[in-house]
């Protein structure tokens, strides 16, 4: 698991057993290191041509990632106990060999009733109505099928936090 901190950022916990997908999450949620030339380029662009960079309006995310449902529960519990709970938890449904994402989401919901829980999966055995029963309430439960654009997901997550 890894963490990235930032001021007034949206705290996101992500659990997925596929390392490639976790990397996609990190890039989409703005964890790619900005190069020196890019910073220089943006600064000169503003200075020389009077343009306005959209990086200032983009939301900042603080991402914590793990690959198992039990790790996600532990991280969520620790964050809640530290008084710095996550704003959004993104869970894959199938994460062998440990517990599945639905069970992890159910336990995290018991610890934190306010957190937005997002299921992103290739396939779920669990019907939507059972998901809503096990991980209530429906307005704080979100469901996306892979493949999905994580950049779009990042914007949706920011929207959830703003709306919540």
């Amino acid at each position: 698991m890894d963490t990235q901190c930032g001021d007034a950022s949206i705290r996101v916990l992500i659990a997925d057993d596929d390392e490639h997908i976790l990397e996609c999450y990190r890039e989409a949620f703005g964890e790619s290191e900005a190069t020196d030339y890019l910073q220089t380029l943006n600064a000169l662009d503003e200075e020389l041509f009077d343009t306005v960079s959209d990086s200032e309006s983009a939301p900042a995310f603080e991402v914590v990632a793990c690959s198992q449902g039990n790790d996600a529960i532990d991280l969520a519990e620790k964050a809640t106990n530290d008084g710095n709970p996550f704003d959004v938890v993104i869970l894959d449904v199938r994460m062998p060999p440990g517990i599945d994402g639905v069970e992890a989401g159910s336990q995290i919901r018991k610890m934190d009733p306010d957190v937005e829980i997002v299921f992103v999966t290739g396939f779920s055995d669990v019907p939507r109505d059972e998901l809503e029963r096990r991980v209530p309430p429906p307005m704080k439960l979100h469901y996306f099928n892979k493949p999905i654009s994580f950049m779009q997901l990042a914007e949706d997550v920011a929207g959830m936090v703003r709306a919540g």
Partner: protein
Amino acid sequence: MTITLLVVVTALALLSFVTLQKVVAPAFDKLELDHARTDLVRAQRAIQNDLDNLSAITGDWGLWDDAYDYVTGEYPYFEESNLVRPTLSNLDLNLLAVYDADASIVWGRVEHADAILGIESLQVLDPGTETAEYLITHTELDAHTDGLIGTALGPMLISSWPVTRSDGTGPIAGTMIMGQLLDQDRRDSLRQRTEVQLSWQTIDTDTIVEPYFAVSLNMPGSSSIRHETTTNTINSTGLLVDLFNEPLVILQVASARNISALGKSTVNGALLFLAVAGVIVAVVAGFLLRRLIVLPLEGLANHITGIRKSGDLSQRLNESRNDEIGSLARQFDKLTMEVHDARMQLLDQSFKAGKADAAAEVMHNIRNAMTPLVNGLDRLAKNFTATTTLRVVQATDELGDPDCAEDRREKLVTYVQSAFAHVQATNEDAVENLAIATKQAHQVEAILADQAKHARVKPILEDFDLGKLIEEAALVIPKSDDTNIDLLMEPELNNFRVRGHRVGVLQVLGNVMLNAFESIERTDETCGNIAVSATNETIEDKQLIRLTIKDNGCGFDDAVRKEIFRRGFSSKDGHMSGLGLHWCANALATMDGGIQAESSGPGLGAEIHVLLPAA
């Protein structure tokens, strides 16, 4: 069953035999012994009757005034009138003796074997002997002595009465004695009267008399009777004692063994009857058992064996009997029907569950593999979009302007350099993202290759009734308020059995039925029909069943006919539903079957022919 029946019949025969031999036959023997005892008693009573008659005659003569006067000497003519020779023979006497009051003989005679003998010939009435004293002397007017005595001429019944007046008054003038010898004539007379083969034997000093044998003549008891049984007779013997209670005569009676012979013939007859009846009962019972129980049970056993060998749970006994075996058969039919239905449901569910599992796994793996690919392309698009906003052209134009300020010129150079660095980095990132995309595409290809291995697994084939499967498949036809569908199934369909993957065939037929329904619905007619028939067909030495499903729906033209089995083809206004005929054709091909489609043209209905191997 046969052995049990034989054991029961044999046991009954043995029980009957033992009962007849140990109960019935001994009862006849006992009855025969009782009869022999009765014969002996009758012989004894006949002798006793003779003695009683003799006593009566003697008493009649003793109480007679004429005899009284004769003994006292007052009537000498008595002898002339009464004591003449015919008197003894007329009275059936062997002895007649008259004594006076002094015990002197007045008149006496013995007649035996046509000879007239003296009293002394008897050797028992000689004066001074104990017997003479006992017989001749009477002290009481009404005293008399009757009994049996042994004489020199043989055993004799003898009676002695005092001679008194006719009215019984005395004084006693003398003694009247009469006797009858138990000779051969008397034995014959007794035999004639009693109809008993009696005889007797005088006891002499050489005769051994057992103690229990000694009873008086007029007191016969069962314990005093002895029986000796031979093959044809029962010899019963009893003892007659004399006046002094001494054994004198052994009375013998020979009784023919008619009763035991009758009993034996009765028992034998009964045994013969039981044997014949037993054989008849065994044969009839065996026949009935075989017909009513054994054969139906054998039929049930064969039915079970047939199901076990063929695995075809759709077979039924259809027993119409109302007895327990009929009930058992119906219960078994019900059980096999339930097991058959459960098996079909299980097969169906396992097939669907297998397909669902496979589909879920494939979806999960492919979607996971596609996610980095999509996001890589997404990032590429974003990065390349970013490069289009670079103002490199504007910067180079300003650099070419001699009036450009030096510090701005330096910043413009830095900008251009940074822009090229960014483009280079974007290109490098693009290469990396394309590599990821290639890798993920290969992963998708590997997942599909893995699925291809499973696709080559042949389905499990089984034999099943076509008619029942069509009824099941027809359940997919929706109940529509707009279109009324008549399903016309030939009754002969139930005679066809095919071999294939039952669930697969069920899905094919369901798909064909649904297509027929939708084709009828598209004609905007309110009613239609789907006719199902089957025929046997031989193609390249293969026995096949051709199942024809004909509808009066919208039909199709030649162009559609050429495309109808192509993957993704639909004649339903571009709308695809169900498995499609392409899938049906592939599924039937894996079962060595096939499918054909025919139509005379648009609006003229269609025929779908499903070919399946005959079972």
